[in-house]
């Protein structure tokens, strides 16, 4: 029996092949993990700034927030638009479209394989962080860890759907990645990667809550670091964005496939 075109055997085959594929690129993935240290740079900036008092996070809480932001980012990085654009341009999409499995599942599996490959590198960087900042060390409770894992996975789902929406535009434009860059700037500022959302004026914060960005880093990072956070509100917003984006992606995808002319083939 298949649910959304998937069964356990397909999931296992896709994940094992994509994990093996990503292991081939482990050196590159280690560098990607290293290149995600922006939250640590921001931590050092905020730590030395007089404005840190306005963040509402004391020294250790700030350390933990930015480490959590680093970890959440590591496991919610999405690159589907780049992979999809390349596949569409090189004609690799055609065989995928002719198989009884939605092609987006292959990209989901590739991302999960990449996250698994990234895991030891991210853990190593976190261990180094604790060596340098031993006072920040903490072990979340099992319940907290599960909630953080769910929030991170939901953040990944939102980011994946947002990028898939843009990737679907590849059916119309051969350079949809340029559009993705437009999204990157608001993501950088409003996700909580540069600063916790508490750093923004209340009016901006109130407005940003209606965008998907705070649920990509700020919310899951606060869940992981153990900051007081509105769990029900955060998860409801994440679920809301997934439920809003999913049909949009499927609709745009269907319309795109209708006009697909198998570029590069």
């Amino acid at each position, binding site marked *: 029996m298949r649910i959304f075109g998937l069964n356990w055997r397909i999931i296992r085959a896709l994940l094992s*092949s994509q994990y093996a*594929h990503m292991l081939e690129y482990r050196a590159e993935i280690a560098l990607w993990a290293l290149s995600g240290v922006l939250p640590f740079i921001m931590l050092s900036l905020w730590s030395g700034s007089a404005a840190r008092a306005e963040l509402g996070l004391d020294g250790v809480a700030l350390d933990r927030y930015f480490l959590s932001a680093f970890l959440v980012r590591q496991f919610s990085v999405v690159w589907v638009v780049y992979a999809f654009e390349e596949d569409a341009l090189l004609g690799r999409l055609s*065989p995928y*479209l002719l198989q009884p499995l939605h092609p987006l599942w292959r990209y989901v599996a590739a991302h999960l394989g990449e996250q698994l490959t990234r895991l030891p590198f991210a853990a190593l960087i976190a261990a180094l962080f604790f060596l340098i900042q031993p006072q920040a060390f903490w072990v979340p409770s099992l319940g907290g860890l599960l909630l953080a894992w769910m929030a991170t996975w939901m953040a990944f789902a939102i980011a994946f759907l947002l990028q898939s929406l843009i990737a679907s535009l590849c059916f119309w434009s051969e350079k949809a990645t340029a559009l993705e860059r437009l999204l990157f700037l608001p993501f950088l500022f409003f996700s909580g990667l540069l600063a916790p959302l508490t750093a923004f004026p209340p009016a901006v914060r109130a407005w940003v809550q209606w965008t998907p960005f705070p649920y990509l880093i700020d919310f899951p990072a606060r869940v992981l670091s153990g900051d007081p956070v509105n769990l029900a509100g955060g998860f409801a917003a994440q679920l809301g964005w997934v439920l809003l984006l999913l049909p949009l992606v499927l609709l745009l995808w269907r319309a795109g496939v209708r006009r697909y002319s198998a570029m590069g083939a």
Partner: protein
Amino acid sequence: MSAVKGVSFSIAPGEMVGFLGANGAGKTTTLKMLCGLIHPSAGEVLVAGHRPQRRHPDFLRRITLVMGQKQQLIWDLPPMDSLRVNAAVYGIPDRVARRRINELSDLLELGEELTRPVRKLSLGQRMKAELLAALLHEPEVLFLDEPTLGLDVNAQMRVRQFLADYNRRTGATVLLTSHYMADITALCPRVMLIHQGQLFHDGALDRLASRLAPERHVRLELEQPAPAEAFAALGQLDRLENCEVNLRVDPALLTSVLAQILARFEVRDLEVNDPPIDQLIGELFRQGSL
């Protein structure tokens, strides 16, 4: 602008049909419409009882498309990994998948290549592995777009032999495009020629020759040399060297022309030929026009 227009044909189950045409004639567009990658703006396409553009899972399980240099195998992994994914996606039980992989790899002469990363395989080995991946689910309808493109002569022959065996064994229907006439002549009793998006010929290969070049070639070897003017009324003189004469003659006049030749000249040898089909098609591809 229309890539194809008014193309109408039907293919019976089990037939192997060659699809010919110059670059840009509309072959690949037609193939993509037949397998559901392109939605036709008008008209109706029916393949294996399905409208391809709907890409119903049952339809997708019954067809396959192989496009020359385009690949579905994961570049950095051995073909076996991609085959496992395909087996799961098409719902082929492990035992059946293993048996089919063994059978197909025997036919394709693939062995340890299946466990070496795709990037380390030669073009011929890669193409054979692609064919294996495309046929693992035993499709009833095969769309093959330049399946031997870039392969050396031996690899081309092996792929050709494999396709003939597969068709015999499974009764699959095959629609094949190729720039190599040897592929077409070896595999396809029926050919369709598409030109500027329209079907120019649909029938036997030898009938195509008479449509492309309606004259017959007459080669004479005379006992005594004769002047060019002596052949003016008989046909188009292609070559005259001492006693060797090549003429192109209208098939309707062939009998009377031959009678006149035998009456007027002392003939040592005489041959009547159709122009070689691969030469005609090759010329057609080179010129890009009929």
